[in-house]
């Protein structure tokens, strides 16, 4: 077959399924943190120099550049530093819309964590609001992020001194 030119109409797309298997490593800091959730404990790491507490635990403080060698436990209660009300779903999570995603500074921690806020009307959420973790029931926790179901307005007062040595 001889043609004077290739067809005028191009093939528009080349389809390609990228398929890449990964075998991720959590690292000891994250592993210890996740496993402690099973015991309803939230761990942080304390900077050797500034004594500030990072949750989840990290290997070093970016501020002082010193190692954070010591593991400590922080409270499962804290306060909302800021938040937003979300009306679009998160890939990989089945959440009823709208929901509140908040930065929560746990008692004893110096870094806020991201948290889901439930059991209250979205319009009642405010900065500074006290919240507490709602855990999966005993026996169901697996030592992963889903062990904390969400946070809700605090119904008890945070007890004791935070952070605590472990």
């Amino acid at each position, binding site marked *: 077959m001889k*043609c004077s030119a290739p067809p005028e109409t*191009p093939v528009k797309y*080349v389809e*390609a399924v*990228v*398929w890449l*298997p990964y075998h991720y490593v959590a690292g000891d800091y994250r592993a210890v943190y996740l496993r402690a959730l099973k015991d309803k404990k939230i761990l942080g790491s304390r900077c050797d120099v500034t004594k500030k507490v990072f949750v989840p635990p990290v290997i070093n403080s970016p501020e002082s550049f010193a190692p954070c*060698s010591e593991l400590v436990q922080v409270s499962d209660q804290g306060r909302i530093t800021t938040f937003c009300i979300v009306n679009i779903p998160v890939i990989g999570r089945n959440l009823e819309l709208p929901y509140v995603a908040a930065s929560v500074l746990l008692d004893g921690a110096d870094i806020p964590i991201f948290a889901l806020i439930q059991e209250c009307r979205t319009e009642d959420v405010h900065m500074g609001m006290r919240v507490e973790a709602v855990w999966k029931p005993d026996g169901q926790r697996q030592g992963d992020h889903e062990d904390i179901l969400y946070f809700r307005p605090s119904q008890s007062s945070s007890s004791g001194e935070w952070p605590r*040595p472990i």
Partner: protein
Amino acid sequence: MRLGDMVIEPMTQRQVMEFPYKHSTGPIVGRFLAALKEQRQIWGQRVSGGAVIVPPQGYSEWDGSAGTEWVPVEDQGVVVAVAKVWQPVERLHPFPEPFAYVLVRLEGADTALLHVVKTDFDHVRIGSRVRAEWLPDGERRGSIWDIREFRLLPAA
């Protein structure tokens, strides 16, 4: 407690990153592929300096200038490089059995096309003359795989 004092069982997880992409081809790649599908014809493109490049990109990779005219080339040529894949990797390589990647300088082209030799795997070497084995009409989809593989031609 200090982390360094603890014995930590590693925590790992396997997870596949998978996503279907659709790469737009544009007028040059797209028409080259359309010709494979509709014409069973391999087209090259002339670039500055007169060389005919196959497959065409729409530009000269040597100096960035735009390609000029379409030039048809033969679907046979000479093998200039051979890599025999003795241990194919699943879901990466196209066949579970050994095969070869070849660079084929097609007649009429100044660059070589990357493709595979499967059937004649044992005998292909640099200097071998090979010809494209096309998928039959109706099965070609406008892809580099419209050429099933390259087969050895009898020595001239």
